[in-house]
């Protein structure tokens, strides 16, 4: 009885060992690639929401959980900050990168990840033919971030027809987060 | 939660129940079509050339044949004797020679052993009736019951249950009320109606005998309101009897159903699967009361009854006093024959009656009418799928769900059909009548009952 149990344990151990060995190997191979992909995606998003930093650099400010963007390598020409917003949408958490200039005005936003209702909520990423940017995200440009509201709440952001929840979620989350970030940065500076 | 909901719903039922009139719940209102014959006085039907008397005309054990082919018999002579309690004998309804004892078509369907008597035209009586009625008050109760059984009396409303059995409840079930059924809720039929008008006194005397037998404290005569003349007459004649009351009932089918009538008359419910005697009453048809009176007071066996011959397929609809065993075609000829060649012949009323393949079948003790329909009334439309409109559930006087039971039977799921109350169905036909999809619900249910019997027998 005991012998048999030991035998089973041993066999299972061998199998799991072999499996973990194989996984470790594959992980070794793919890890850098995956990390690079993630970095690339973030980088793309960051340079999109912080225009003017394309040739400059973006420095993570870990203390405030934001990125600072500069136009030049020597970090003298401060352009703005970028931060991630995670809004609770209709059916998913929506990850948006937001770029703010030093006055707290939105430069650009980019929705990077969402699993909203196809055809409704996903319209927040829709790029109309002949345009280069998602039309819905474009309307955030140049507006003072903490005051952002969708039209149904008396604001200026036109909500997506049939997807008020998605629109409101993104808008409110950006407004709320930018408020605290602006407060914080004023204190630190 | 569940308990509260059930309690609330029961309360609703209760309120609805107390508001409800003297009627059972459900039921249908078919056109009564009684105008064909309701004012026609009962005529004596001329005696036929031969009569066919099935040995089995009642519910219960068959009776034992006493005669042989070739024998001569007289009117009223017993042709069989009952060897068991739940059984009644049959009697010769004319005098003549026994031409055959063989299987003949029975109006209830199938073939049945029958005695065929050729008429000798004399109509000689085996035991001629006394000129004056016998004083029944002096006859002892057991003797009365024996006379009723010997006279071959079985319920004449259609079910044909031996009357003496109904009158012998076990001692732990005392009977306090007798309900006399003069409802006649089947459309077209007027036999009981005419009888109540023309034989009022005899019926009441019969009722008196019945009450004496079971020691009933009171009697109620239930009559549907569409027979206003009968109600008036009965009320007039019973005025001096405190024990007997006449109860006019709303016109609704099946008001004459035993359990429905009891509900309307007494507000008592016969327990499911039980008998009226369980709640202290028995129901007898008016024609049975008359037969009882004649059997006791004139020693006259049950050899004739009132038959309504009616319907759009009959040239001259009539109410007949006809001998048992008279072939249908004889009665139909006596009513002027068919109006058309394509007809549907029905034994009984249009709601519960059985279609006959041939007009050679005889009148039996339970034949209240012969209905002949022509094409205009014969409904032969196609069955459509059930749309669960709930009409059958609403009208079912037994509060069953005919749609479900029928569909269970259709799919051979007899156990579920039984769980839904298959055996409680009284086959009144209200569900099939009302069904907008023209589904043959009662037919399925009857079929299901047959399947159930077969299943129980085989197991």
């Amino acid at each position: 009885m005991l012998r048999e149990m030991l035998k089973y344990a041993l066999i299972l151990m061998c199998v799991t060992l072999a499996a973990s060995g194989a996984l470790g190997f594959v992980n070794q191979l793919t890890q850098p690639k995956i990390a690079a992909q993630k970095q690339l995606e973030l980088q793309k998003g960051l340079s999109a929401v912080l225009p003017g930093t394309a040739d400059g650099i973006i420095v993570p400010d870990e203390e405030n959980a934001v990125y600072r963007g500069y136009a030049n390598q020597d970090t003298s020409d401060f352009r703005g900050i970028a931060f991630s917003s995670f809004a609770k949408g209709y059916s998913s958490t929506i990850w948006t990168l937001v770029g703010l200039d030093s006055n707290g005005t939105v430069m650009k936003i980019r929705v990077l990840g969402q699993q909203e209702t196809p055809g409704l909520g996903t319209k927040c990423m829709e790029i109309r033919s002949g345009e280069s940017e998602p039309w819905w995200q474009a309307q955030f440009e140049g507006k003072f971030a903490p005051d952002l509201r969708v039209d149904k709440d008396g604001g200026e952001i036109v909500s997506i027809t049939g997807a008020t929840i998605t629109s409101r979620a993104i808008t409110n989350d950006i407004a709320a987060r930018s408020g605290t970030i602006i407060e914080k940065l004023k204190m630190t500076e | 939660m569940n308990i509260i909901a059930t309690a609330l719903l029961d309360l609703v039922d209760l309120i609805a129940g107390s508001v409800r009139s003297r009627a059972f719940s459900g039921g249908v209102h078919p056109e009564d079509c009684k105008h064909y014959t309701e004012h026609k006085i009962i005529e004596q039907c001329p005696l036929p050339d031969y009569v066919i008397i099935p040995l089995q005309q009642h519910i219960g054990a068959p009776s034992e044949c006493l005669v042989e082919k070739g024998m001569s018999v007289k009117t009223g002579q017993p042709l069989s004797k009952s060897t068991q309690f739940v059984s009644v004998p049959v009697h010769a309804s004319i005098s003549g020679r026994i031409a055959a004892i063989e299987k003949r078509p029975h109006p209830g369907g199938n073939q049945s052993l029958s005695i065929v008597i050729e008429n000798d035209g004399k109509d000689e009586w085996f035991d001629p009736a006394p000129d004056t009625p016998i004083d029944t008050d002096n006859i002892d109760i057991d003797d009365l019951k024996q006379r009723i059984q010997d006279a071959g009396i079985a319920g004449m409303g259609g079910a044909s249950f031996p009357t003496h059995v109904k009158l012998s409840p076990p001692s732990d079930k005392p009977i306090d009320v007798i309900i006399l059924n003069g409802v006649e809720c089947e459309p077209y039929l007027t036999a009981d109606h005419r009888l109540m008008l023309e034989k009022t006194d005899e019926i009441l005397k019969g009722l008196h005998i019945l009450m004496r037998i079971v020691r009933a404290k009171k009697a109620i005569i239930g009559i549907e309101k569409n027979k206003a003349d009968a109600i008036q007459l009965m009320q007039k004649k019973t005025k001096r009897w405190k024990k007997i009351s006449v109860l006019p009932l709303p016109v609704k089918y099946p008001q004459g159903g035993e359990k429905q009538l009891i509900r309307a008359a007494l507000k008592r419910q016969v327990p499911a699967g039980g008998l009226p005697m369980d709640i202290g009453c028995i129901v007898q048809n008016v024609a049975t009361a008359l037969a009882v009176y004649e059997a006791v007071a004139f020693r006259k066996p049950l050899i004739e009854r009132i038959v309504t011959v009616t319907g759009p397929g009959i040239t001259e609809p009539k109410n007949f006093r006809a001998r048992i065993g008279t072939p249908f075609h004889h009665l139909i000829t006596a009513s002027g024959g068919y109006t058309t060649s394509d007809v549907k012949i029905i034994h009984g009323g249009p709601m519960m009656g059985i279609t006959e393949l041939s007009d050679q079948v005889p009148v039996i003790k339970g034949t209240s009418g012969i209905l002949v329909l022509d094409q205009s009334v014969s409904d032969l439309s196609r069955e459509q799928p059930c749309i669960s409109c709930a009409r059958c559930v609403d009208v079912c006087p037994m509060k069953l769900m005919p749609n479900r039971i029928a569909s269970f039977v259709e799919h051979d799921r007899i156990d579920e059909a039984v769980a839904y109350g298959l055996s409680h169905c009284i086959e009144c036909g209200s569900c099939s009548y009302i069904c907008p999809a023209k589904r043959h619900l009662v037919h399925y249910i009857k079929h299901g009952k047959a399947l159930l019997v077969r299943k129980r027998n085989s197991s």
Partner: protein
Amino acid sequence: MSFKKDLIKGIFQENPVFRLMLGLCPVLATSTSVQNALGMGSAVIFVLLCSNIIVSLVRNWVPAKIRIPIYISIIATFVTIVDLVMAGYLPDLHKSLGLFIPLIVVNCIILGRAEAFAGKNGVFRSILDALGMGIGFTLALTIIATFREILGNGTWMGVPLFGPSFEPVLLMILSPGAFITIGLLIGLLNWTDHARKIRHS
């Protein structure tokens, strides 16, 4: 006992989706577009193939009492490999399939085949079985995805089929659309089968 039958049965008469009703969860989730369907299909084919091979190789050393945990470990390993490789080299596909790749582990088709076939047969037949089942799964997924993508998005393999005035049937992209499509397809198959049987008899 023909090898051809081992391969073909998974595609038609024992199609895992339409006939065995296995793996319906990933079918619902990943049949929104033909690309997703093909991606999911290839991932399943890979995992199924590898797990069938390994299981049929080790089948004689695996004690019956602990075969399920061993099969699961084998399958999970390959699923994780697919997940990692896809994340590294096909990031876009990984993004849209992301959540469903790890779920392949519990996809009944794979454990089902290991249990019903690979655990009892040799390597070569197991390979054929895995290929047949995998192709059958992919085929079913692609057929469903074709309906859903064309109706629900107006595209096929990402190529717009109708003009801009086409208004896609959103429901088809949502999960009810998958239920309706699968139901109708299975109904259609059963119906034609039934009709054929009636014709034969």
